[in-house]
C-alpha cells in the first residue's frame, strides 16, 4: 500500500522526481491517472517521463507526498508503457479546464486540483478555483500568504468539492457542475473534513432511514444545519415531513431554511397544519433575528387563573414546550402582563390568582432584534428565556438561552456540533 500524507495539491507534485528503491531517479511525474469512481475518483496510476514514459500503477508506489515520490520496483526492471485512450489524466484532462455551471454558464477555470485520503485511498476531492491556487501554480503561494498577512487577511482556499462536479469522462472539454452559479458562491467548503464527510452522505442517509421518526428527529437536531438539510433532502418527502413535525419548530425552520425554497415549501405543505403554520411563521423571519431564533411553543396563562389550575394545565402542556421554567401571563390581546417562574408557582398557595404572584414588568424582545441583543438581554438579567413580541406588543414566541449560548461563550469553547 502506498504511503501518502493528508492532502496534496497536484501542482505540488507535478514534475517532481520519482525515485526507485535504490534512490535512482526514474523520471519526473508528468500526470496522474484517476478512475471514474463515484463520488471521488481514486488515483489508479501515475505517469512518469524520463528516458521513456512509464505508467506506474498506484499499488506499486511506495511513498507519495510533496517531497518524495518513490516506487517499489527498481528502475531497470520497468517497462515503458503507453497511456490508454480511456484513461483520465488529471493534468492533461482537468487542470486549467473551463468550469461551467449546470446551465452551461462559464464560471472559472480549474486552477489546481486537490488529492486527499478518502477511506484509505488517494482520491481527487476538490477543484481549486481561487487566487491561492493560481499563486501556487506560479510558485508564489507562500509569498502571497505573507502579502495577505501584511493586510491582516487570510489567503483563503476556494475549493469546489468534487461532489458537485458531474461525472467525468475521457476526452472531456469542460467540467460541468451539478449546481447553478448562484449556488457556487456558497459552495466553498473551508475544511477538508467537511469535503470528506460528504463521502459518507449515502451511508448517513441509510442510517437515518433505519431510525424511528422520533429518534431521527432528535439525532438530526444535533447535526450541523447544512448536513441536516442534506439528509432531509435525500429522504422521501413523507418521511422528511414526519421528522420535521417532531422537531421543535425553530430547529425545523433552520433545517428548512437551508433547503431550496421549492423543496422546503413542499415539505411544509406535507406537515400537519398546526406545526406547518409555526414553521412557516418562523421561516419568514431572518434566521439570526429574535423572530428566527424563537420557538412558538411556550406556556401562557390568563391573569385570573389560580395556581392550582395552572399547575394542572402545566402537566398537560409540559411535554409539548421547550421550556417550562417560565409561565407567561397574557391578556386577551396576547400582551405580556407578567411572568412567573416554575419555582414561584410551586411555592405559591393553590388558591392564589396568578396575577398576584407574577413579576412585572417583563423584558421583551422585538421580532427583529439581532442575536447579539438577544444574548445581551438574556445574560444581563440571567434569564433562561425571553419573550418575543411583535409590533403590537403581542407575544409571538420565546428565545431560550440555548439558542444564544454559542454567542455568549468565547469562540474556543463553543459547543462543537457532532458529526455523524
Amino acid at each position, binding site marked *: 500500500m502506498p504511503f501518502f500524507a493528508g492532502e496534496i495539491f497536484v501542482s505540488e507534485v507535478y514534475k517532481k522526481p520519482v525515485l526507485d528503491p535504490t534512490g535512482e531517479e526514474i523520471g519526473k511525474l508528468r500526470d496522474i491517472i484517476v478512475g471514474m469512481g463515484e463520488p471521488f475518483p481514486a488515483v489508479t496510476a501515475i505517469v512518469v517521463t524520463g528516458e521513456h514514459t512509464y505508467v506506474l500503477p498506484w499499488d506499486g508506489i511506495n511513498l507519495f507526498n510533496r517531497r518524495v515520490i518513490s516506487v517499489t520496483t527498481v528502475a531497470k526492471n520497468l517497462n515503458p508503457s503507453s497511456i490508454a485512450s480511456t484513461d483520465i489524466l488529471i493534468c492533461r484532462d482537468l487542470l*486549467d479546464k473551463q468550469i461551467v455551471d449546470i446551465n452551461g*454558464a*462559464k*464560471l*472559472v*477555470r480549474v486552477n489546481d486540483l486537490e488529492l486527499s485520503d478518502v477511506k484509505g485511498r488517494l482520491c481527487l476531492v476538490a477543484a481549486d478555483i481561487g487566487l491561492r491556487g493560481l499563486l501556487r*501554480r506560479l510558485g508564489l503561494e507562500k509569498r502571497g500568504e505573507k502579502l495577505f498577512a501584511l493586510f491582516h487577511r487570510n489567503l483563503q482556499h476556494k475549493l469546489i468539492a468534487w461532489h458537485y462536479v458531474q461525472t467525468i469522462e475521457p476526452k472531456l472539454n469542460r467540467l460541468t457542475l451539478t449546481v447553478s452559479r448562484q449556488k457556487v458562491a456558497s459552495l466553498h467548503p473551508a475544511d477538508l473534513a467537511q469535503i470528506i464527510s460528504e463521502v459518507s452522505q449515502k451511508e448517513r442517509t441509510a442510517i437515518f432511514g433505519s431510525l424511528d421518526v422520533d429518534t431521527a428527529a432528535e439525532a438530526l437536531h444535533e447535526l450541523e444545519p447544512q448536513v441536516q438539510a442534506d439528509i432531509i433532502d435525500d429522504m422521501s418527502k413523507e418521511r422528511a415531513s414526519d421528522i420535521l413535525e417532531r422537531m421543535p419548530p425553530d430547529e425545523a425552520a433552520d433545517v428548512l431554511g437551508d433547503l431550496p425554497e421549492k423543496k422546503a415549501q413542499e415539505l411544509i405543505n406535507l406537515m400537519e397544519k398546526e406545526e406547518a403554520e409555526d414553521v412557516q411563521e418562523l421561516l419568514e423571519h431572518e434566521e439570526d433575528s429574535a423572530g428566527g431564533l424563537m420557538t412558538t411553543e411556550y406556556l401562557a396563562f390568563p391573569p385570573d387563573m389560580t395556581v392550582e389550575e395552572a399547575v394542572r394545565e402545566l402537566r398537560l402542556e409540559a411535554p409539548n414546550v421547550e421550556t417550562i421554567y417560565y409561565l407567561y401571563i397574557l391578556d386577551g390581546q396576547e400582551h405580556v402582563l407578567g411572568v412567573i417562574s416554575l419555582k414561584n408557582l410551586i411555592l405559591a398557595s393553590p388558591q392564589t390568582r396568578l396575577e398576584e404572584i407574577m413579576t412585572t414588568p417583563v423584558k421583551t424582545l422585538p421580532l427583529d432584534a439581532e442575536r447579539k441583543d438577544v444574548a445581551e438581554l438574556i445574560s444581563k438579567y440571567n434569564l433562561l428565556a425571553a419573550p418575543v413580541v411583535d409590533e403590537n406588543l403581542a407575544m409571538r414566541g420565546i428565545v431560550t438561552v440555548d439558542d444564544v449560548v454559542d454567542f455568549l461563550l468565547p469562540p474556543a469553547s463553543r459547543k462543537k456540533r457532532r458529526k455523524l
Partner: protein
Amino acid sequence: MTFIERIKNIRHARFIALLSVIGPGFIAGNAGNDAGGIATYSIVGAREGYGLLWALVLITFALAVIQEMSARMGVVTGKGFGDLVREEFGVKVTFAVMALFVFANLTVTIAEFAGIAASMELFGLNKYISVPVSAFVVWLVVVKGNFRQVERFLIAISLVYLTYVFSGFMANPPWPDVARQIVTPHIRLDRDYFLLFITMVGTTITPYMQFYLQSAVVDKGVRIDEYRFAKFDVYAGSFMTVFIAFFIILATGTILHPAGVVVDSAEDAARALEPLAGNFASHLFALGLLNASFLAAFVLPLATAYGLSEAFGWESGINKTFRDAPQFLGFYTAFIVIGAGVILLPGAPLIRIMFLSQTINGILLPIVLIIMLKLVNNAAIMGEYVNSRRMNMITWVTVFILILLTVMLLVTSFIL
C-alpha cells in the same frame, strides 16, 4: 423556375450567408489602422513619398496569413486565443502573456483616446468634452447593445475609413509613378528608412487584432461549414486595411512630401494639409483619424476583456449583461475609464506611453505568433484543420521575418 433563376437563387443565398458571416475579420483588420497606424502612414508618406509603397504588398500578405490562422482556430475550436493558451500552456505562460497583453492594450487604448482628443481639437472641440462623450458612447454601445448591433455599428464605422480613399484621389497623384513604385521594391540603406519600414509593419500587425478576431469569431458562433465565408471576411479585412493605408500614404506622399513638410503625427499631417490642399482635405483627414481612433477604442477594450475572461474562465460575450458576465464587462469598463481618464489628466506623459506601448507590443508579438503556430499545428486541438505543409512554410517564413523585424525595432528603439 428556369435554370438561370435557380443559379441566381443559389447565388443570392450564398451572398446572404456571406454577409451574415462577415464582420470579425473586417473589424479586426480595420482596427489595425488605429490612431498609431494613421500617424505612421502619414509620416511614411510625408518623409518617403511613395518610397515604401512596395512594402504594403508584403504587409497585406503577412496580415492575411496570420489573421486567417486566428479565425481558423476560433472556428474549429470554438475557443478564444486566451482559452487555448491557458489550456495548452498552463498558468505561467498565460500570466506572462496576459500581463503583457493587458499592459500593451492599456497604453494603446490611451493612444486611441488621445487620437480622439487630437482630431476633435482640429474641429475646435475641447478634449474635456470630446473624450468623456466618446468614452461614454463606446461604453454604452457594447454594454447595452447585442452582438449583432455592435458588429453592424463597427462595420459601419469601418466604412468611414473610405474618406482616406477620397483624400488620396483628391491629392491627384501621378498614377503611373505610383504603380511603378508599388511593384519595384527598392531598399535604401539608411537608418531612418529602415526604422520607418519596421514601424509600419509593427503598427499594422499587432497582437490585439489576433485576440479580437478569434474571440469575435467565437462570440459570433461561426460554424465550420461557414469557414470559407469567414476566410473571405479575413482576407477582405486584411486587404481593406492595407488599401486604406495605401491612400493615406498617397495623400501625404503627394502633397506633403514634395513640399518638404515634416510631420510627427496624424494631426500634424491634417494641419499641414490645410494650406497645401485646402480646408476640406484637412477636415477629411481629421475625420479619418477620429474614426480610426473611435473604432480602435471599441476593439482594444473588447479584445482585452475577451482575452482575460478566456484565460481565467469567466463568462464573456457582448450579448451578456453585467449580471451574467461581471468580469468581462467590468474590464471593458475599466479600460475605457482609464484610457479616457489618462487623456484628461493634465501633463500625462503621452509620448512616453506611446513608446512603451510600441515596445511591449514588440515583445508580445513574437510570443503570440510562436504560440499561435504551435496551437494551429496541434492535431489534438485542430484535428484535420492543422496547417498544411505549404501553409506551414509560408507562415513560418512570415513569422520569422516579423519576429526579426520586431526584434530589430526593439533593439533600435532602445539604442536610438
